[in-house]
């Protein structure tokens, strides 16, 4: 890919991709319709793909660009498709009243961003390149994903929370070291895909057993 990039252009494109990555993550906190959340997740997958392709073009590394395409196919294509199918089958359009309202969620996101910035200082210090300086963005999305996971009550929104965390870890891997070794990357993608399929089957069973996927219904087991 003989794209000739100047330094300034590389940094701009990288920041653009990271900005889109962060924005889609924050918007998940804002929207309540499950179909919109799935859309945002797919868009985040596109932003992640763009991020990897920019890194790959800058390093003139064809393998990295191909890995980026694979990541995109999984995270912007296959996973959103699977979730959309689950959504159509389930017929539950909206998140029920979340535990934390939208305004508070957005404030929490700002606090999480500061936390992520503080946490990533040692990482940036080791090698302050434009790519590693974007690590706080990835860690912010990680914390937002965790926040979505613990405060949302629909099974599908919890799943999106988990996948946001996973996107963020992948982004961190590419920003710091251009990704983990290929064997591991393949294993991770396979495990992720299977985990999503397992959770999807469990959602179907939950609907059969509880008549819905509101996780507040999960109260049978306690001490």
């Amino acid at each position: 890919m003989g794209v000739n990039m100047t330094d300034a252009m590389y940094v701009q494109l990288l920041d653009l991709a990271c900005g889109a990555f962060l924005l889609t993550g924050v918007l998940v906190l804002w929207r309540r319709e499950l179909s919109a959340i799935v859309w945002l997740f797919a868009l985040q997958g596109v932003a992640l793909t763009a991020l990897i392709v920019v890194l790959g073009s800058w390093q003139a590394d064809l393998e990295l660009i191909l890995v980026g395409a694979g990541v995109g196919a999984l995270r912007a294509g296959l996973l959103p498709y699977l979730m959309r199918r689950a959504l159509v089958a389930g017929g539950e359009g909206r998140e029920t009243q979340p535990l934390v309202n939208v305004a508070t969620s957005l404030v929490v996101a700002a606090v999480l961003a500061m936390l992520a910035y503080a946490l990533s200082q040692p990482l940036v210090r080791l090698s302050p390149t434009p790519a590693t300086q974007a690590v706080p963005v990835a860690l912010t999305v990680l914390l937002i994903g965790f926040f979505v996971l613990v405060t949302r009550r629909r099974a599908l929104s919890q799943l999106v929370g988990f996948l946001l965390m996973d996107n963020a870890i992948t982004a961190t891997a590419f920003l710091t070291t251009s990704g983990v070794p290929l064997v591991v990357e393949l294993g991770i993608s396979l495990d992720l895909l299977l985990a999503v399929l397992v959770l999807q089957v469990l959602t179907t069973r939950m609907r059969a057993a509880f008549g819905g996927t509101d996780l507040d219904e999960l109260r049978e087991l306690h001490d």
Partner: protein
Amino acid sequence: MDSLLVVAPVAVPAAAAGLYAVLGWNRITAWLGVLAAAGLLTCAVALATAGRREALAGLLHSDALSAFMLIVIGAVALLAMLASPAYLAAELAAGHTGARAMRRYGVLTQSFIAAMALAVLASSLGLLWVAIEATTILTAFLVGHRRTRQATEAAWKYVVICSVGIALALLGIVMVHYAGTHAGVASLNWAALAEHAGRLDAGVMRIAVMLLVLGFGTKAGLAPMHAWLPDAHSQAPAPVSALMSGVLLSVAFYAILRVKVIADVALGTAFTRTLLIIVALASLAVAALLLLAQRDYKRLLAYSSIEHMGLLALGAAIGNTLALVAVLLHILGHGLGKSVLFLSAGQLHQALGSSRIRAASGLMARAPLLAGAFALGLLALLGLPPFSLFASEVGIARAGFAAGLGWAITAALVLMLIIVAAIGRHSRRMLLGGEPGEAIALPRSVAVPLVAGLAACAVLGITLGPLHSLLQAAATIAGATP
């Protein structure tokens, strides 16, 4: 030939899983799992005597520590598989399962065992992670086997909490890789990382080690990420609970041991030690608190697993040879004792239709052999002689006092006293109290693993025999300080 021996512990159960997929579960194939487990155990013993081996272009690697873990996996798998035919036959007779579910049980249990063998043979942090995450996926449907509301709830919590925990471990691995690349180690190989650990950046490694201990600790059932464990262990079929509690937790703990070797060189021993003491005491405290008012005997066993994982973390925190030998022996003793208990609890649950402690009162009069096995298993887990857990707990305590960690050991002993009192009170109500009901039959094929497990646990408490040198070698690999 050399490399074949390293691949075999993964290949044998994987082949058995394939055969189950083709042939299904019937009266004859039900014993295929036993055969595969025995094969795995044989390979493990052969590897223990073979020294360091590699296979598949260095992807797999076997040393004394992995060989010892394979022995634990093989031994517990053998007990669990011996009890499986009778367990599934009873489930089928009661209408809780069908031909498809039994075929799936065969495929999933064998793949699960293969994934655990892969985890302890992996030569890199990355492959280890993939194998441990695979165990979550493979056991999800085993936990949800009965498809009831409770089973579905347990499976959901299990997959979500463990996947999140293991995702944190993945982030830790990414950071180790980042620190490694800047120290000239491009791979995630143990040996390479340990060799150059002194050059890894301390600031990055501190975050990485914290994430790795928290992440793999989730899967090992260590506090604060233990919430999935009592649900999953009480809902899974008994032989699967035995495998999960007896070995899966320890396999995840094995990952922490491997991380500790690198962390100790990169950061000095104090950092990981503090981290492990915190999770150890937190786990013991959680177990003690929730055991006091426990009303369900399967959940009682699950909380006891959290207690024992806490003890392992404490032993690893101490980190000298005596402590690590004791930790490894404790892994084996706990695996044997806990599988006996979960298998007996499974029989009990099938006979009573309830896992309430109150429903099981007067057990000694109704099922003397079953109650005897359950009682001896509990005594073993409470650390009474002659069982090996007595020797390993004494070892951890002695090593702790010698290493100047007397305060941590004292705190742990106080919490363990509470646990002994709680379990003692519940088991007395269960075994002796109440009016005797109708007798409970114990199939002979289940009695065999119960007796064998207890006997092995008792023999190990008296003499280690040839295991002694293997444990010493494994402790050295786990980074024992003299």
